[in-house]
């Protein structure tokens, strides 16, 4: 049987050898991925944190002021953001960034490149400024896409919880409004969002690719495009393996978070 052969191959994948690339013998897929991983992870992480924070805040506000003007406005903004094609919005933000730079007469936003190597060895503050200038616009773009659907979920689940008996009980006990919302309602209302966010990681990775292309970053998005253009199947497999792992890890974290958020769930 070819069993032994297969085992050999699996053994070689483990330490990071993804197979021969069509982009020449010097192109090692493992090193290429490792080199670019941080660039992309930085963008994905930052935009997810901001999107999550903003989604929870606006979702809760929308739910507490249901059917108010503010709620309608936030809902419409959410719908609009949901309908925006990432790459189109990225193009607009890029053009706006260029306009802004011209207006101020200074390079506030870097609209091209990830700027990883520009500030190497510079003082820490300069490195931070450099990273901020390069990351600000792509992060906003990527953030808005996931923010839209997450804030909708947060609003729905918050509404459901606010109408539940235990929130009424908490109020009846005479707890302060603030305590009821934060400790009783919000904590439970975060559970559905955890699931949605974990699944949404796949969507954020999609968006990251498009954003990286527009802003010409040399991250995993660029790696993916080059691999497709070169018909580099092994590189694509390595890429998919990585993104699959990230999504599964996110789902694992979500499962563990359930137990933290919901006192009824316990993993023995």
């Amino acid at each position: 049987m070819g069993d032994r052969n297969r085992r050999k191959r699996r053994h070689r994948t483990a330490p990071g050898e993804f197979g021969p690339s069509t982009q020449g013998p010097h192109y090692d897929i493992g090193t290429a991925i490792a080199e670019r991983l941080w660039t992309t992870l930085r963008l994905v992480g930052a935009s997810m944190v901001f999107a999550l924070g903003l989604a929870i805040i606006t979702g809760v506000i929308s739910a507490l002021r249901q059917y108010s003007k503010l709620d309608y406005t936030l809902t419409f903004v959410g719908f609009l953001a949901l309908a925006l094609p990432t790459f189109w919005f990225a193009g607009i933000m890029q053009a706006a960034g260029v306009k802004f730079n011209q207006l101020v007469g200074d390079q506030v936003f870097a609209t091209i490149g990830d700027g990883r190597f520009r500030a190497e060895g510079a003082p820490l503050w300069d490195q931070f400024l450099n990273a901020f200038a390069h990351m600000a616009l792509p992060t906003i773009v990527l953030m808005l896409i996931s923010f839209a659907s997450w804030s909708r979920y947060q609003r729905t689940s918050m509404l459901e919880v606010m109408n539940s008996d235990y929130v009424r009980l908490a109020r009846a006990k005479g707890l302060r409004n603030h305590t009821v919302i934060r400790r009783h309602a919000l904590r439970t209302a975060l559970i559905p969002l955890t699931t949605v966010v974990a699944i949404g990681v796949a969507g954020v990775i999609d968006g990251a690719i498009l954003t990286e292309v527009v802003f010409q970053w040399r991250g995993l998005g660029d790696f993916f495009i080059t691999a497709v253009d070169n018909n580099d199947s092994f590189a694509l497999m390595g890429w998919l393996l990585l993104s699959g792992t990230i999504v599964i890890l996110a789902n694992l974290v979500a499962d563990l978070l359930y137990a933290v958020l919901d006192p009824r769930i316990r993993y023995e």
Partner: protein
Amino acid sequence: MSENGMSKSARRDPAKKRKRSSADQTQLQTILIRFTRHRPAMISLVLLAVIALFAFVGPFLWAWDHTVYKEIPSNQPPSGAHPLGTSAAGHDVLGQLMRGAQQTLKVAFTVSLLSTAVGSVWGATAGYYGGRVDAFMMRVVDIFLIVPLLVAAAAIAGNSGAGTSWSAIALIISIFSWATIARVVRGVVLSLREQEFVEAARASGASAPWIILRHLLPNAAGPIIVAATLLVAVAILAEAGMSFLGLGIQLPDISLGQMIGSARTAVSTRPWLFYPPGVLLVLICLTINFIGDGLRDALDPRQTRVRR
């Protein structure tokens, strides 16, 4: 969502049909009235119809189609002869826009139909049988769910070289989007299968396929319709993303994403190339999302508040 399915099935239960007819509205009428009162959804429906007319009838009425003509001067800003300007190669942008919208809509609705057909049968089968069958079928669904849609579709389209015709693109996107529908339908069916009418059907000797197709799926129609509508928007954005990357619909054919992709470097110099396809994409997605929202409100039996 499960309670939603339950109460609807109770209403549609043939045994209770006689009782219901005494009311002055049938269920369908109630749904229709609710939907027509949902103002954003109705406006969106009209707008979407206009866009569809523009995309499918427009090319017959407008002088230029989406291909290159020697007579068209290149890089002209909007003018009387070319209301949306012309491209560098000598395309009429309005003609391109019509064709692009047409391809986009064709891909999106095909994806929605295909994925819904496959996904709902898959999900209903898993939910109905339960146990090991369910576990296996849902693991397959999970595999499709963890792969980023755009990435997987683009990789296949790029690697197989199939990324040229709209039907191939639609098929590829469908492969990676039916799983969401399967998940929704399974959830609904899990609660439906415990109901008396399913037991009654089983007792009267109905086969499993019959129960799934004639009893379970019709009763899960509400959530399925909503999910299918929202999938249209997802498919549009996926197709646009693929075409933007150059891995979707290829020249000489055109799609909205591809138009944006080729105008990427001309945002401030030739804005007439960049903004119209984007605005049209946003409009289509926006209207579809609002229609989905309206359908969800109309089909949800728990919803009692009449929307103004």
